[in-house]
């Protein structure tokens, strides 16, 4: 019975994915993409990867969907009639893609050799770190350099997005257009749902040490709630030159880096946690990481500065 569910889910994911690719209107394509992301998180739950399901739902379809929706709203008014690619290109692309899919499917059906698993080695030494959640253990203990660099990539991307604004506007205000008429229903929603969302975000960060969850998922929920409040016009979009905003952006990676360097003095190797202090240090890193991920994701969605701002 379980495989009947899986087959139905897979057919639905492929149907929604194909529909999003071939939808006539870009706006509908993005709406269907958000639905596709939520269905994909169901697939991740079926693959027993709940951490990834949370991340896919929060970042993969929630925040990315909002980013694309903002873009299509702004692009729609200048949507030049696209020149459809010639049918010969379509056929060639179709053949090429079916070849790729067939080869990947062959790889899945006849796996080359016994799947090597790193799970035993992870579980062996997970005990020292005091963490219960193996994925958090990998993220913050064994591959902590990846997590640090990935957080830096997120901030670098934001700096690049900001630098795309015209020079005169550097430090200006992003132009997230709050809802024009004061819609009382939207304001009521933006007043009541965010407190619940913030609580869920902090819960998700806190539970990440032992259960699926963590800094990324918690940060994404906080970002979604902040965007919700800004859209409803209850909170002003902070100018990119505000020091509090910039501090919040970098506090996560800086604390992570500081603890990493501290590891050099205390235990001789970069990003190594001293004996017995692993869990409190990781909790501290995750706390600051949650804040800065939330702020960075929200600033990505809000976009580059487009209005003058004299603080």
């Amino acid at each position: 019975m379980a495989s009947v569910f899986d087959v139905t889910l897979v057919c639905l994911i492929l149907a929604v994915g194909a529909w999003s690719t071939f939808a006539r209107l870009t706006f509908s394509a993005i709406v269907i993409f958000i639905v596709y992301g939520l269905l994909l998180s169901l697939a991740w739950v079926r693959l027993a990867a709940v951490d990834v399901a949370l991340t896919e739902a929060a970042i993969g379809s929630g925040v990315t969907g909002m980013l694309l929706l903002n873009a299509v709203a702004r692009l729609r008014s200048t949507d030049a009639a696209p020149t459809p690619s010639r049918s010969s290109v379509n056929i060639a692309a179709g053949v090429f893609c079916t070849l790729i899919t067939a080869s990947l499917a062959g790889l899945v059906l006849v796996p080359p050799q016994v799947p090597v698993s790193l799970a035993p080695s992870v579980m062996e030494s997970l005990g020292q770190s005091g963490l219960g959640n193996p994925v958090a253990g990998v993220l913050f203990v064994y591959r902590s350099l990846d997590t640090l660099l990935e957080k830096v990539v997120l901030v670098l991307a934001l700096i690049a997005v900001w630098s795309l604004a015209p020079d005169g506007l550097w430090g200006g205000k992003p132009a997230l257009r709050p809802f024009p008429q004061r819609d009382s229903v939207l304001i009521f929603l933006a007043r009541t749902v965010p407190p619940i969302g913030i609580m869920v975000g902090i819960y998700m960060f806190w539970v990440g040490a032992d259960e699926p969850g963590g800094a990324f998922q918690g940060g994404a929920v906080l970002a979604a709630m902040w965007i919700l409040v800004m859209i409803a016009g209850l909170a002003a979009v902070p100018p990119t030159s505000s020091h509090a905003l910039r501090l919040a952006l970098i506090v996560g990676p800086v604390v992570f880096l500081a603890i990493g360097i501290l590891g050099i003095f205390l235990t001789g190797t970069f990003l190594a946690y001293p004996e017995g202090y692993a869990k409190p240090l990781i909790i501290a890193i995750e706390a600051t990481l949650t804040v800065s991920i939330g702020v960075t994701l929200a600033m990505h969605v809000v976009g580059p500065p487009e209005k003058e701002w004299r603080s």
Partner: protein
Amino acid sequence: MNEFLYLAATVVLAMVALGLFRILYGAGEADRLMSAQLIGSGGVAVLLLLSVTMASSAIVDVALLLALLAAFASVAFVSTAEELRASVSESEAGDDPDS
């Protein structure tokens, strides 16, 4: 018992798919909001059934997140549709608004 719950989850998923295809075909602004709401509650129902069959309470957290995201997506649709209407009327472009 698990077999029955998997059957229930499959039926809910199929019904959500059916409703989704019908609503999103029209793709007016109200239809988009409804699709977000339908996938929200349908997804939560499937996840809660899965949390019992796969005996993992963490899946309830995913359902919690999905419920929040459905509300967030609805607001996103309303605000961007509004911005779309404003930008189209603002630029007086000749093309008809697609919603």
